[in-house]
């Protein structure tokens, strides 16, 4: 899942080298934290959070495959 979020984020931003993704694994849930360059925030959030919503939808599907819940947080 970390790889998935990282792959998508790196494909969207202008500074892929500044993309950092960490994954905190729980028993049934996973928390993924996505950090990008300040100028790239818009590229992973989008108008009305549309891009962030889409990234979450894909992470959710990937997590469902492993029987887990996932939350993707975009942090500053």
């Amino acid at each position: 899942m970390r790889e998935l979020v990282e792959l998508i984020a790196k494909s969207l931003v202008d500074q892929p080298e500044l993309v950092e993704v960490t994954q905190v694994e729980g028993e049934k849930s996973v928390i993924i934290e996505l950090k990008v360059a300040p100028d790239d925030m818009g590229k992973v959030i989008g108008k009305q959070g549309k891009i962030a919503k889409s990234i979450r939808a894909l992470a959710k599907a990937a997590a469902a495959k492993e029987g887990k819940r996932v939350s993707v947080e975009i942090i500053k």
Partner: protein
Amino acid sequence: MESVEKRGKSVDEAIKAALEELGAEFEDVTIEILEEPTKGLLGVLGKKSALVRVTLRDKPEAKVVEILEKILQCMKIDYRIQAAEFSEGVVRVNIVGNDMGLLIGRKGETLNSLQFLMGLIVNRGREDKIRVMLDVEDYRLKREQGLRELALRLSEKVKRTNRSVVMRPMTPQERRIVHTVLQNDPAIVTYSQGEEPNRKVVISLKR
């Protein structure tokens, strides 16, 4: 765009040499003949070889498939790309496999998200924007055909009854299909009303 110029005794030979250098097939390139060969006098004087420029064609469908495969592999989805084609500014990809229910998601949420992200990624740094349409086991294609038929039936009804018809709320992609299929009907106008996500197409008579 990658291109090479090559000379040869004939146009065919020049093209062949260029294709070899590019490692490309005939259907993947566009060819310009810059100089026709001339035989010259007695085969000696003024003899000129052919010069061609061979350019690799832009293949956005290849890029779409490349990114799509990476994402699907990351998601550990069992999939196979059945078809990917590019025409009139739209890349259409049809995916089949065992995890298609998961890939479509509730109300198509996952598939629509993937399609939206693919569009963003592929259009990064592109001048002429292209649309990406992802389909799963021709699900959208079938729905699209159904929608076209419905639009035509409703337009007939509008003409018959002289009354406008308001369709159910639809996504921009679906509304676009209705507008497109009826835009050449001189007796009919279509427009959308309401706000997302309750925007609806209205079919009415042209006055």
